[in-house]
């Protein structure tokens, strides 16, 4: 349970890279809009009214609106499904029971004393249950016990082994794959020559999950761009249809921010609608896959169940949709607003 939470958190962090791009556009708009709006009071009540009004406009063209929302929804559903899949994969990893162990082989130059203090430091990290430092001598002893190289080692007149730290990791607070990531980070410590997880299968799972995460990020970015373009093009057409209205509004003193607002709202609605649809699609897919997965799991004697969307993924999807929708319309309006001048 706890392990899953950690995995989800991690997936959300990755996804937020895409969202950040979107919300930056939005906050940039706010920043540039407010000085223009200075002296023009727009109370939040009116803003809410205009938001609802823009929704009314969209429902006046149900077919176009439904089409855009469908495209945005499908585009968003793919990365969301991917992140749910990844969370499930992590969850499957967490099904290993017992502790996760890792070994840190230190640099040759590190003294036994330094190894001991490093072990004490590492033990303070939340991921680490226990850290045991082995001096070079102890390393050799353990190695002799564990291997058949006894005779070969006896031929060497110097101990070839460095000091080592054995870590027991806490898989209650982080998923095994997340812990694998943690071990990778330890590799970067100057004292550490090699850091490795002792469980080979876990290393492989980690490698696969991190590869998939990267792929998911790429897909999310590409589809995010697609959503932005789709919404931007739609809003662009709407702007063309309302050229006269925009010109007249400019003529009676409407600021760019004022003119932009209803289009941003349209983009927001498209994005939110698409986000909701994406969530529905993912739920349908989970429902369809749930039966076969349970069957498969029971064949392996496991009670594994497919996990659904976390609250974070739910909100993240809506937020990403809204952000990308607004980004698309922001870009469309910025590109065209200057060209529309009264004559």
């Amino acid at each position, binding site marked *: 349970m706890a392990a899953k939470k950690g995995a989800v958190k991690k997936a959300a962090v990755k996804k937020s890279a895409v969202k950040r791009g979107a919300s930056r556009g939005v906050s940039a708009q706010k920043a540039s809009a407010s000085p*223009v709006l200075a*002296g*023009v*009071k*727009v*109370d939040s009540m*009116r803003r809410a009214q205009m938001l609802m009004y823009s929704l009314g406009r969209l429902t006046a063209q149900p077919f176009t609106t439904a089409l855009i929302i469908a495209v945005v929804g499908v585009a968003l559903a793919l990365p969301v499904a991917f992140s749910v899949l990844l969370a499930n994969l992590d969850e499957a990893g967490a099904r290993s029971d017992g502790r996760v162990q890792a070994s840190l082989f230190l640099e040759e130059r590190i003294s036994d004393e330094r190894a001991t203090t490093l072990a004490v430091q590492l033990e303070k990290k939340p991921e680490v249950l226990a850290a045991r430092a082995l001096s070079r001598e102890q390393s050799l002893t353990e190695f002799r016990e564990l291997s058949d190289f006894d005779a070969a080692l006896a031929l060497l007149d110097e101990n070839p082994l460095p000091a080592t730290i054995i870590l027991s990791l806490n898989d209650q607070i982080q998923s095994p794959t997340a812990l694998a990531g943690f071990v990778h980070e330890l590799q970067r410590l100057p004292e550490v020559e090699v850091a490795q997880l002792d469980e080979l299968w876990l290393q492989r799972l980690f490698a696969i999950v991190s590869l998939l995460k990267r792929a998911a990020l790429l897909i999310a970015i590409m589809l995010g761009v697609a959503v932005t373009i789709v919404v931007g093009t739609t809003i662009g057409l709407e702007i063309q249809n309302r050229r*006269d*209205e925009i*010109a*007249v*509004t*400019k*003529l*009676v*003193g*409407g*600021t*760019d921010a*004022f003119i932009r607002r209803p289009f941003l709202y349209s983009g927001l609605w498209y994005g939110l609608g698409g986000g909701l649809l994406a969530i529905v699609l993912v739920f349908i897919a989970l429902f369809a896959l749930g039966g076969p997965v349970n069957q498969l799991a029971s064949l392996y004697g496991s009670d594994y169940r497919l996990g659904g969307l976390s609250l974070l993924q739910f909100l993240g999807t809506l937020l990403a949709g809204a952000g990308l929708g607004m980004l698309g319309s922001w870009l469309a309006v910025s590109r065209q607003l200057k060209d529309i*001048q*009264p*004559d």
Partner: protein
Amino acid sequence: MIEFQQVRKRYANGHEALANINFTVERGEMAFVTGRSGAGKSTMLKLLALIERPSDGEIIVNGHQLNKITPRQIPSYRRGVGVIFQDHKLLNDRTVFDNVALPLVIAGAPHREINRRVQAALSKVDLLSKLRQNPGSLSTGEQQRVGIARAVVNKPPLILADEPTGNLDPELSLEVMRLFANFNHIGATVLIVSHDQLLVEQLGQRRLMLHEGRLKNAPMVRTTGGLPPGVAPAMPSVNPRSAGRNPGAKR
């Protein structure tokens, strides 16, 4: 309030619509621009509404130097000028109410204020009964009056009108001119373009006469007597019904 200095306007096709224009309209003044069709009257107004930029010279309006104004300053300048366009420039997919309300919505006026002011403006042009109609369903003369209501709803310090009586019958024309005189009376500076020499002479206000892009009577001849008795600004409204209820456009 309005100052033209050596203003020249040459359109992209090379046509020189205005040449060497110099004049000043003082704050609180009401003046007319007359001249034949093609004389450059609309061009002058377009320069004032920042639809066109001068090719040369300086235009200073209400403290803004229009030949140097930046794009960011344009909206606030325009909010201070009420313009009535020759072609009305109304939104045909919105109601008369929404058209007139637009300047107030832009200015972020509260809901009740918008309601009150739009109704006051529409009653002045006798269109209160057409509130919920779209301009497209109105006659040209009625559309013109919607344009007037929109221009004055914000009580701008400067009102510009391009042929505001162009589509009105003589009787209504005079009433609309009286309306402008009223706005002038309560402090607005008013500049009206009209090719209707007779009507303008009747009103006896200062005239700028344009002929082929040049001012003919540059340092102005000014009729000092104000309005002739028949068009005295005593009459507060063109709408006889609302005359009592609506005592002018008191600021």
